C-alpha cells in the first residue's frame, strides 16, 4: 500500500518535471500564448498534488517507523524532495514565478527516484538518536539545501536571460523568464535564507552532540567539514556582493558552485568518506 502510494508520487513528480521543463522549452511567443498556459497549469498542479502525496507518504512512513524517518537514503532523499518542493511552492506563492519549477522540479524528481529505488530498505535508528533534535537538525539542514537549490535555479535563469539579451535578436520574444534584476535579487534572497537555515541547523546539530554525551562531537567528521565549506562558499558570496558588487553573473556562477558543494556534502561524503552522518 505504502509502496504503491510512493510509486504514484514518483509518477506525478515525473509528469510535473516533464511539463515544467516543456514550458521552458517553448521559445516562440505564439506558442507561448497558446499552449504554455495549459502546460504551466498542468505542471503547477502536478507539483501541488505531488507535494500532497509526498507529504502523505512521509507521514505514513513516519508512523510505520515509529520515529522521524531519517536513517536511510529512502527517508533522506524523500525528505530532500519534500523540502525542495516546499520552498518552491512558497516562492511561487510570494512571487508568482512558476518558471523556477523548470529548474528545481527535476532535482526533486531525481531525489524521489533515488528514494524509490531504495524503498524497501529500513534501518534501525539507535535509541539515543530518537528525539526531536534529529527532527529539528535535519529539517533545518534540508530546508537550507532546498533554498540553495532555488538559488541555483535563479542562477540558471539569470544566465539564460543574459544569454538571450546578448544574442539580441530574440531577446524580447519570450517573456517566461523574469528580468536579470529579478532573478539576481531572488537568488540572493534564497541564498540568505539558505545561510540562515544552514547556520541554525549546524548550531542545533552541535548542541545535540552536547546534549547526548555518548556521541562525541568530531570536528574532523567529513560531513561537518564539507558543510562548513559549503557554508563558507555562500557566506563569501554574500560578503563579496555586499562589498565588491559581486552580483549578477558572478552570483549566478557562485550559486552553481554552491549547488555542487551541496551535492558533495549531501551525497558525495556518504559515498566516499566515513562519517557519523552516514545513511545506511
Amino acid at each position: 500500500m505504502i509502496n504503491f502510494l510512493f510509486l504514484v508520487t514518483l509518477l506525478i513528480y515525473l509528469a510535473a518535471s516533464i511539463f515544467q521543463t516543456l514550458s521552458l522549452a517553448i521559445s516562440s511567443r505564439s506558442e507561448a500564448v497558446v499552449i504554455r498556459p495549459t502546460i504551466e497549469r498542468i505542471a503547477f498542479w502536478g507539483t501541488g498534488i505531488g507535494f500532497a502525496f509526498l507529504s502523505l507518504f512521509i507521514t505514513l512512513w513516519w508512523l510505520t517507523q515509529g520515529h522521524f524517518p531519517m536513517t536511510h537514503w529512502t527517508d533522506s532523499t524523500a525528505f530532500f524532495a519534500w523540502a525542495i518542493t516546499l520552498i518552491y511552492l512558497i516562492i511561487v506563492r510570494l512571487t508568482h514565478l512558476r518558471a523556477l519549477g523548470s529548474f528545481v522540479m527535476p532535482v526533486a524528481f531525481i531525489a524521489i527516484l533515488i528514494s524509490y529505488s531504495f524503498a524497501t530498505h529500513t534501518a534501525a535508528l539507535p535509541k539515543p538518536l530518537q528525539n526531536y533534535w534529529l527532527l529539528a537538525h535535519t529539517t533545518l539542514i534540508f530546508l537550507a539545501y532546498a533554498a540553495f537549490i532555488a538559488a541555483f535555479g535563479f542562477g540558471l535563469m539569470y544566465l539564460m536571460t543574459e544569454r538571450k539579451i546578448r544574442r539580441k535578436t530574440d531577446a524580447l520574444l519570450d517573456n517566461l523568464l523574469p528580468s536579470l534584476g529579478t532573478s539576481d535579487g531572488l537568488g540572493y534572497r534564497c541564498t540568505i535564507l539558505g545561510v540562515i537555515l544552514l547556520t541554525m541547523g549546524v548550531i542545533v546539530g552541535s548542541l545535540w552532540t552536547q546534549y547526548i554525551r555518548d556521541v562525541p562531537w568530531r570536528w574532523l567528521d567529513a560531513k561537518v567539514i564539507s558543510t562548513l565549506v559549503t557554508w563558507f562558499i555562500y557566506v563569501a558570496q554574500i560578503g563579496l556582493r555586499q562589498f565588491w558588487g559581486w552580483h549578477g553573473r558572478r552570483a549566478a556562477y557562485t550559486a552553481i558552485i554552491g549547488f555542487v558543494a551541496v551535492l558533495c556534502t549531501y551525497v558525495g561524503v556518504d559515498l566516499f568518506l566515513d562519517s557519523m552522518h552516514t545513511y545506511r
Partner: protein
Amino acid sequence: MNQIVSIGTSHHVAPIEFREKLAFSEAQIVESLQHFRESDQVQEAVILSTCNRVEVYAVANAVRNAEAAAKILAEFLSHYHQISAESLKKWTYLHHNLETIRHLFRVTTSLDSMVVGESQILGQVKAAYDASREASGVGTILNRLFTKAFSVGKRIRSETTIAAGAVSISYAAVELAKKIFNTLEGKTVAIVGAGEMSELTAKHLVANGVSNVIVANRTYERAVKIAEKFNGTPVAYDSDLGFLIDADIVISSTDAPDYLIKRRPLADIMRKRKHRYMFLIDIAVPRDIEPDVSKIDHAFLYNIDDLEAVVASNLKDRQQEATRAEQIVTEEAKRFYDQLQIFQVNPTIKALHQQFREIADTELQACVYKTTLSDQQEAAIASMTQAIVKKLLHHPMQNLRCAVNDGDADHGQYVQALQELFALDVTDDNSDM
C-alpha cells in the same frame, strides 16, 4: 429582413485627400444619425471616423436586399459630403451582412490597421459606438454586433500575440530595459548628444518609471536646453566618462566621428559603480560606443542595427500571429452571422407557435365547456392538443432552421411567406434574446 451593410474608406484604398473629404466631425455624426432616424430608411447606424478610416455601419429592414441598403448609404455619403458617385465608387468599399460583420471584427481587432496589433482602434470603435448609442442610433442588432466585436477583440488579444512586442525602436529599448532591470523606478538615464530619437526613447523610459535624466553634451548650453525638457541635470561631457557613474541606461546619438564611450574608461566606471547593470543604446551612425564595451560584465550594448533587428523580429511575429487572428475572426463572424439569422427568425417562429397554441387552447376550452369530462379525460385531451400543435409545427420549423443554418439565402422569403400566410403580427421586439 434586416440587412447589415457598411460603406467605408481607409488608408488601404484611398489617399488622405479623399479620406478627409469623407470625414465626419462629432457634430456631423450626431446630425447624420438624426437624419437616418428621421428618414426611416436606416434603422440603426454607427459612424466611425478616424484619421485612417471613415466607415458607416447600418441596419436597414425596409429594403429588398443588401445592395439596396448599401445604395442608401452611398447616396447619403455622396449627398452629405458633396462627392461624386464615381469617386465614391472608386475610393470606398461596400460590405454586406457576413462581410460587414467580418470587416468590423477585423477593424476592431486591428487586423485592418496600418500597424497590426495597435490598440488605439479598439478605443476609437468603442467611442463611435458610444456616440451612436447616445444619439439613439443603435438598436438590437448593432448593439449585439458591436458588443461581439469587442469580445472578439478581447479574445484575439488573449489568444494571439498580435499586440505583443515593441514595433518601434524606442519601445524596443524600453522593453529591453525591462528585461534587464528589476524595475525602472529610481533608475537614471543619460542622454549623450542630442537627437529626436534619443529624446523620444528617453521620454518613453521616463513614462515607464525612470526617474532621473542626465544630459551630456559637448556644449554645456546645449545640455542645459535639452535637460530642461526632461527636468533633468545637464552635465559636461568628459572623456573619463565620470558623468556615467550614476547612469543605468545610456542613450548615445552624437555626430562624433570616433567612439566617445570606450571600453577601458567604461570598465573603470563600472567598477566604481559596483558593477550595477548598464544598458547602453547607441543610435548614432557612425557609432559612439566601442563594440567591445559589451564584453564588460553587466554592460549590455545595443546599436541601431540590433534594435532594428529586434523590431523586425517582433513585426514578423505579429505577422504570423495575424494569420491566426484572421482565422479566429472569420470563424467568429460566421458564428455570429448564423446566430443573428436564428435570432431574426425567432420572432416569427415564436409568433407562429403562439398562434397555434392559442387556437388549440380556445378550441379546448369550447370543447370542455360543451361536454362533461372527468379531470383525467380533460387532461388527456389537453395534452393531445399540445402534441398536435407540436407535430404540426415540427417540419416547417425544422426546415426553416435548417435553411438558416445552411446559410440559405431563401430563408428570408420563407419568413416573409409564413408571416403573410398566417397573418402573423411579428413585432421587431427582440428584447428577450
